[in-house]
């Protein structure tokens, strides 16, 4: 392969590492840097630039809220408030017990169902703030215990 094109594999390799481990570990960065003959700093720079890569391990359950325009005008900010209040973490973080990761995305393109919450890959459409807690308790009963702590 043409030498400058070798680096073109970088994002692909990072996707692979993230799929395998759930996040990009320091070891993965070192290994990829060696493979592509670039510095670890350069790999790190790319990892932190893109939202799709995480340097931290993710929670057991992934809660994703769509923050696209259609969801926004249909009340997504109220859902975000409620998710953050229930999980007691801001968007982008994982609960200290490692159960839930809360993240927002800019649009999943299922606008007819807005506002949308995706819990572990399952879509929940036209969610109302008062339904949020039930959605979460359904996937993990430990949530109530978490709240009491």
């Amino acid at each position, binding site marked *: 392969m043409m030498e400058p094109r070798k*680096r*073109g594999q970088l*994002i692909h390799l990072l996707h692979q590492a993230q799929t395998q481990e759930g996040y990009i570990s320091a070891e993965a960065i070192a290994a990829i840097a060696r493979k592509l003959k670039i510095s670890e700093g350069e790999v790190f720079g790319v990892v932190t630039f893109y939202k799709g890569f995480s340097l931290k391990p993710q929670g057991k359950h992934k809660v994703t809220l769509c923050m696209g325009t259609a969801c926004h005008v249909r*009340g997504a900010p109220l859902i975000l408030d409620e998710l953050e209040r229930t999980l007691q973490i801001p968007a982008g973080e994982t609960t200290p017990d490692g159960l839930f990761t809360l993240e927002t995305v800019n649009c999943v393109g*299922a606008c007819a169902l*807005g506002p949308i919450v995706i819990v572990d890959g399952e879509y929940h459409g036209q969610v109302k703030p*008062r339904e949020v*807690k039930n959605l979460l308790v359904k996937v993990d009963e430990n949530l109530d215990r978490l709240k009491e702590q």
Partner: protein
Amino acid sequence: MKITNIEKLKEKVINSRDKTKTWVTVCGGTGCHAYGCMKVVEAFQEEIKKKNLVDTVGVRTTGCHGFCERGPLVVIQPEGIFYQRVGVDDVPAIVEETVVNKKIVEKLLYRDPQTKQAIIHEQDVPFYSKQKRIIFGNNGLIDPTDIRDYIAVDGYQALAKVLFEMTADEVIEEIKKSGLRGRGGAGFLTGLKWEICRRESAPIKYLICNADEGDPGAYMDRSLLEGNPQSVIEGMIIGAYAIGATEGFIYVRMEYPLAVKNITIAIEQARKFGLLGESILGSEFSFELHVFKGAGAFVSGEETSLMASIEGRRAFPRQKPPFPAQKGLWGYPTNINNVETWANVPLIINKGADWYSKIGTKSSKGTKIFSLVGKINNTGLVEVPMGISLREIIYEIGGGIKDNKKFKAVQTGGPSGGCIPAEMLDLPIDFDTLTKAGSMMGSGGMIVMDEDTCMVDVARYFLQFTQEESCGKCVPCRLGTRQLYEILTRITKGQGEPEDLKRLKDLAKTVKTGSLCGLGQTAPNPVLTTLKYFRHEYEAHIFRHECPALSCKDLIIYYIEPEKCVGCLLCLKNCPVGAISGERKQVHVIDQELCVKCGACLDVCPPKVRAVSKYTGKKKQQILNKEKKARRR
């Protein structure tokens, strides 16, 4: 199997099929997936097996039909019977009644909300009948994971024509003559772009399909990749032949897993059929195509950023010129077009530039797919000829505003576009009229807003988006979008200053003129258009601490009207923070200090009672003062 004669293959595919067979086609777009359409597909397969109908009835999962509002969608072919909101429980009835007995299941038909009339056939539903689905129409007919389905609807005929009957210059001439303009947003003439790239002399040339569809609320590119990926591939091979490119990339957003999957399958199948790779269809032309999955950065939709991303770097844009057509991927001439643009190419070749250029307006030819979303009755993807008015799209195709509310504005062009007010509903839509209105076509997002949408908050929303997505390379965009966002946030909190109006305008101009790439150059559009058309809303927030749409949390209160409350305890039980007090059959009261303004009380208060109201401005202050006085007593 390498094929050399596409016409023969088409015949073979069609003849190999049992024409008497009934097909149950289920929409398999992301929207319908979210509704659970795959369970419906499984239920059909089981039911058909159970009833021993496997030889006479087939189930086909197709691409997006566009009418997302009514999903999961099922169409029984060849009759074209259209069922909507189909659940697993409806499957036995459909198989028994419609498939076996050829009767209609009334309750699953679409009813016209005005006339209440049930409509049997897909093409008669007003949502579809007003459209012109020349690009998007095949989505509902083909299984995107089976290349033979595409070939059966004249797929790859255009490629054969190009390879054996046309020179590269003739292809470019045809595309130029058609007047096709780039569907990614800026609307540059596609044929001209190709010509510039063709004229460059270089040992290698690349081709890119930009499927990094990042505008929130726009998903037509995804639906094309998911639903008819071969049409995009065919367009790209034709483009490669015209330009002289030997290798291409399709850059897809990582948020679109189904699109990545379907386009990957499509490329493999095209390769197997000899439509990609060495000597395509037995000609002397060779072309290779790869899928590149993005990693979540809005700015990578900008062409120079996108190329940086493919090269394995951070998606920073760079100064133009040199344009990608001169110096693109790894320094070689590169032609980038958007998904929808590529999908237009085979059609133009098949039907001719003269036919194509008859559709649309003087300066914008053909159709455009819009994603009609927000506070609209019929959410979905609509393909209409350029020049149609906003009113026709929103009221005739979209069925008007949700819950009979009043239309306020439509936002087009995503974070780069602007908000168009009710006075301009009769504006014929094309590239130039939208730009003149201060907005832009963008990739075709159309977000409808009603009286409950606060326009200052909408501007704030978009600036929050762009300031987060700004790559940080140039100062005007990095700092300017941040400052715009902070001023707007302050205004929505009721902390705006009279000078803010001028500040916003000045700053917006600086960001527009001083930014390096399209992201920054267009980021202030949502601010500028809302300032232009909805200045009174800004003034209400700043001078009267009032949110006319009753949407900005810091400027409103929820209040239980004592004379209306029946004391049913519903709101009290549903309040997530325990801010409501009261006893059964006694008037409930919201503690304004504790209230987080989630709206749960308003939401659960029975429609017959409607005791919960929202107040802003003067009225809000009056209520707060009254409550304060009562507490003191």
